[in-house]
């Protein structure tokens, strides 16, 4: 350990921190992380990425003669279709696997879109203030007054009848992004209002920085943390929203295997005993949402030193 010499010339630091190995530091930092949630989400990502290799059958084309087969552990089930088949004879497992890709893409993309819109508006609103703030906040209030699902349906109808022919997946991303940005704007604005008063922002003004530079260099990195926490908490919400839209028929269009859509197509089967058509996709939704929320919660506490009580 490098110890300072006696009567050190002003400027030596008081001792060097001992350097732990990288793995020790990572392990110490991640202490307390919800491993099961991380595992579930890791599995989701893995499945989404390697769907082509993991799915035993084609998710979109089925054999009508093999329809309504139950999962393997029931009588009449077979190992060929581990989770059974749906009303079109398509393999449920393969559809779930490919469905993970849709859920993941839509969730991440929608959260990104919502995050970027919301954070930008919150930043401008909080830092510039005055009439910009008033306008943005009133817009936010109005937006929040609209019931999200109805609003989404409205938007979906509008987009579907528009002349652009965007694949339905990206429609959903835009819709969800547009519906969910308000939470970010509010939270980020609040943080920006208090960050504005920090000494280092004042010093940046004194140094001659432009407003844009201050927002980009000084404010944004310090609110990024909150934005990320919000995003992790919103992933669950967005997945459910996507599933809801698909369930209602205004989300992802068949034959694409979105979990919500699968639940919708299979709902008739709940009455007639073909439970696996709806229940299995819903189980997946539930697991992923729980995992994402749990992770988001842990991250919120972990990233805020005060809450960690160190």
């Amino acid at each position: 350990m490098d110890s300072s010499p006696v009567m050190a010339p002003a400027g030596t630091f008081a001792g060097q921190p001992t350097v732990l190995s990288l793995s020790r530091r990572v392990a110490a930092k991640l202490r307390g992380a919800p491993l099961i949630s991380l595992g579930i989400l890791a599995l989701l990502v893995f499945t989404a990425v390697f769907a082509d290799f993991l799915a035993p059958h084609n998710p979109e084309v089925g054999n009508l003669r093999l329809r309504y087969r139950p999962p393997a552990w029931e009588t009449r089930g077979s190992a060929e279709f581990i989770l059974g088949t749906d009303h079109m004879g398509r393999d449920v497992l393969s559809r779930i696997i490919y469905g993970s890709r849709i859920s993941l893409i839509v969730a991440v993309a929608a959260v990104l879109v919502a995050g970027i819109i919301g954070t930008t508006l919150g930043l401008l609103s909080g830092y510039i203030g005055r009439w910009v703030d008033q306008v943005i906040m009133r817009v936010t209030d109005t937006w929040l007054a609209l019931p999200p699902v109805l609003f989404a349906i409205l938007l979906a109808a509008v987009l579907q009848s528009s002349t652009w022919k965007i694949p339905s997946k990206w429609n959903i991303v835009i819709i969800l992004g547009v519906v969910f940005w308000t939470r970010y704007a509010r939270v980020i604005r609040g943080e920006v209002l208090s960050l504005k008063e920090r000494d280092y922002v004042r010093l940046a003004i004194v140094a001659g920085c432009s407003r844009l530079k201050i927002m980009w260099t000084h404010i944004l990195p310090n609110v990024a943390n909150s934005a990320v926490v919000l995003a992790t908490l919103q992933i669950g919400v967005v997945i459910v929203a996507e599933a809801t839209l698909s369930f209602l028929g205004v989300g992802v269009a068949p034959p694409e295997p979105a979990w919500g859509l699968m639940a919708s197509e299979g709902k008739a089967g709940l009455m007639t005993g073909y439970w696996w058509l709806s229940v299995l996709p819903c189980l997946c939704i539930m697991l992923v949402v729980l995992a994402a929320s749990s992770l988001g919660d842990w991250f919120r506490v972990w990233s805020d030193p005060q809450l960690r009580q160190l």
Partner: protein
Amino acid sequence: MSDKLVEIRDLKKHFPVMKGLVFQETIGLVKAVDGVSYSIGSGETVGLVGESGCGKTTTMKMVLMLEKPTSGAIIFRGQDIQSLAGKDLKAYRKGVQAVFQDPYSSLNPRIRVGDIIAEPLVVNESLPRAKVKERVQELLSLVGLRPGAADLFPHEFSGGQRQRIAIARALSLNPSLIILDEPVSALDVSIRAQIMNLLQDLQEQFGVSYLLIAHDLAAVLHLSTTVAVMYLGKIVELATSEQLRTQPLHPYAQALFSAALPVHPDEQREEIIVTGEIPSPLNPPSGCRFHPRCPFVKPICSEVEPVLKQIDTDHQVACHLFG
């Protein structure tokens, strides 16, 4: 007196107090700074000393253009800063920098120290990267920090070291004036002396002027050439450090001396215990603002406000006891 670097003339800042949710009306004025005049020469230090509500912080913010004066002028090198725009405004920003009180909020925790120090340079001059790096190293060694410090983040430094970083940043553009807002009050006692010595050395080396704002009378007297004692938005006494030390005239200035803590248990000092609380700047007392608490109050004090009168060369007092 136009050879002075900065001249403050009858500076006032009144904050309106609003009431009402939808239709706001002004029901009062907080007269935070109410007619303050002094000047800062090249290479000298002017200290503003006073307690809460005296207006020293607001004055400083106006000089830094963080607040707009209600009336009065701040003349920098012969130009009123309120009329500055464009290139002239830039030149002003380059000439006047600041170091604030709290070393923990003065540095952006997400930016490396080298970039923090270089920011004023990068914003105001277009120097090649290598030159900027060189300058940062130069500044680090000027304030007594190791060159390797540039790559570290603020949280790896102690309070005293952070203030050194803040000082290095303030020096980066070779300003003519640095505003020091309570630069050492948040630091440990043993570190305060280090920083005060550093500030003195830098002034000797570069001839930079300081506007020092502090509540610690001893520190202000130690570092300043001229001292202005402020009370509730006004200057009550303006004198050189030596004159104030040997002969404080205004009762409030005397009270500050008396209230300051002794350096030895046997130290005898005239006890001038000022009674009562510091009044709110929303409703300052009539006449002389200090009269309700003044041990030498006369009838005229509650009626007529005293003005700063020259008692001696470089010594002015605003008090009815003197002229």
